């Protein structure tokens, strides 16, 4: 008999209560008014569906748009709480967890966008691409290289001195030889 999901039953229930008020045989159904409510509803729905479409599709599944808390006092139903936005416990949990996740992600993401060094000399300096993800620190490498160069310089100086000393010796030897001749 088609999909008759009773999501928005408040309207019909309102109609139903009104109908019950006018009905003289209502006292008979007093003990289990809910059951009569349902049966009455079904009858009304059946009548409707015969006239309208066979298949009913909900626009907003699982999201009851309005919830009504009905209390019965002496056979009369009173609507005590009527809430337009109503979510189930699970849905509330989902919403809050999404909220938290978004906040955390947002703090990280938008916080990262506010980098005071972005595209600055500090990030660009030694060949970085201006973001904090790609920095080089060349200071120490340069210093180490300078010391290596210094070492080589000293070595060359030492060798030159030694070679110079040898040459002097050789020259002195030659002179002596010449003198001997």
């Amino acid at each position, binding site marked *: 008999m088609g999909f008759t999901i009773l999501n928005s039953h408040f309207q019909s229930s309102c109609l139903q209560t009104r109908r019950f008020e006018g009905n003289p045989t209502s006292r008979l159904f007093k003990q289990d008014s809910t059951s009569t409510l349902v049966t009455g509803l079904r009858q009304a729905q059946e009548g409707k569906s015969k006239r309208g479409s066979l298949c009913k599709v909900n626009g907003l599944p699982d999201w009851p748009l309005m919830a009504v808390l009905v209390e019965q006092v002496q056979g009369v139903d009173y609507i005590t709480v009527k809430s337009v936005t109503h979510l189930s416990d699970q849905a509330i949990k989902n919403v809050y967890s999404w909220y938290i996740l978004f906040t955390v992600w947002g703090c990280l993401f938008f916080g990262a966008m506010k980098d005071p060094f972005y595209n600055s000399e500090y990030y660009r300096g030694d060949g970085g691409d201006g973001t904090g993800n790609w920095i080089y620190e060349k200071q120490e490498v340069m210093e180490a290289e300078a010391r290596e160069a*210094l070492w080589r310089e000293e070595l060359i100086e030492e060798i030159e001195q030694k070679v110079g000393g040898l040459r002097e010796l050789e020259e002195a030897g030659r002179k002596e030889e010449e003198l001997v001749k």
Partner: protein
Amino acid sequence: MAATYLLPNPKCLSSFLTNPPSVSSIQFTQLSFLNPLDHKPHSSRRLNVCTNAKKKNPWLDPFDDGEDPNMEYGSLFADGKQEEDPRPPDNPDNPYGFLKFPAGYAVEIASLGLKVRGDVRRCCCVISGGVYENLLFFPAIQLLKDRYPGVQIDVLASERGKQTYELNKNVRWANAYDLDDYFPEPAEYTDMVGVLKSRYYDMVLSTKLAGIGHAAFLFMTTARDRVSYIYPNVNAAGAGLFLSEIFTPDSLNLSEGGFNMYHEMVDWLGRPFRSVPRQPVPPLRVSISRKLKEVVEEKYKKAGAEKGKYIVIHGIKSDSKASMQSKGDTDSLLPIEIWAEIAEAVREFKPIFVIPHEKERENVEEAVGEDASIVFITTPGQLAALINDSAGVITTNTAAVQLANAREKTSITLFCSEEKGRIFVPDAEEKKCTIISSKTGKLADIDVGAVKDAIKTFNVSLALV
């Protein structure tokens, strides 16, 4: 000093044999006689051996009874110094392609030398203090380089102290880290521990007086030899557990030892080992790069001086951090008025005033005159280059004295007391250094007349040269 290094002292002999110190040499001969393995020349060689000058910490390894005298080593890596970077010759005809091996390629047996002979391939020197203290560590670095050929030496020093290593060719990396910070920033601390650990040092030397905290820091580098000074008081409690060798200084301030402030460490580093004799301590030397010389030349030419025709005056009183004092001699700066008086006596040469901060420029100009040549220098590298090109140096007890001695320049040094002079410049005459000390123990009361007389002789001697 050198003579005492060369003598094997009897204390370490006894500890080597793990006998009580009362044991005389007679017993020692008996012992070597009883050992059939000990040949005569061998045992005489052993006489020089001094593995550990002090008693070993029994907590470190309760089953370590010292070196086994009967132990026989093979030929591989057992004796002598380590070799510098063993590398096979490049072989282009290699069937597996032209393989170029890096230095220290023999990783399979590399650890043998480290174990058997105690090689040091990578060494880290953690040096506390400023420029002066770091400068005085230079001989120790040279000693390391001589004792362990091919060793790679890295340095961890304070922000100021690190600048000194511009002058040292033997150092590979120099990192700045504030060692004297009582509570370092956790991020910096952990970062530095990680950096040191990932460099896999064989030896870590520290000249900071270690308590349990600093000892733990050194321990976390996972080096084989963790060598450090410790506090000479109760603060050292627990530090020995984390260190493999400890030195106890005479006072809380290591710098009070003057020129030989690291003598305990140097003594240990140069210790004889098997057939390697005691390594002599090299003199303090600095090397100056060409680039540095050029920069400084520009500076002093701007100040109106010529190469070899000026005298450096260093040690003007200032609250700047760049005054390069020693921590062991706090009274070592003279006010500019006295300097101006002294500088009047300098005739043949142009006095150059080195200021550690730009704010001193006005004061100097006020005291000396508008035409005074002033050079603003904060780094020891530039100061060394300036001294290198000068005719001589007049200074108080700042790093300039040691730099002048290292570059073999004539210098006149003003000290607050005679004793300080003796400590900070031993063998002054050899180093062409004239020491003038204050009679009252305060540097400000120095006899300016004496300084002027010294400058006259200085002028004469330099003019003759």
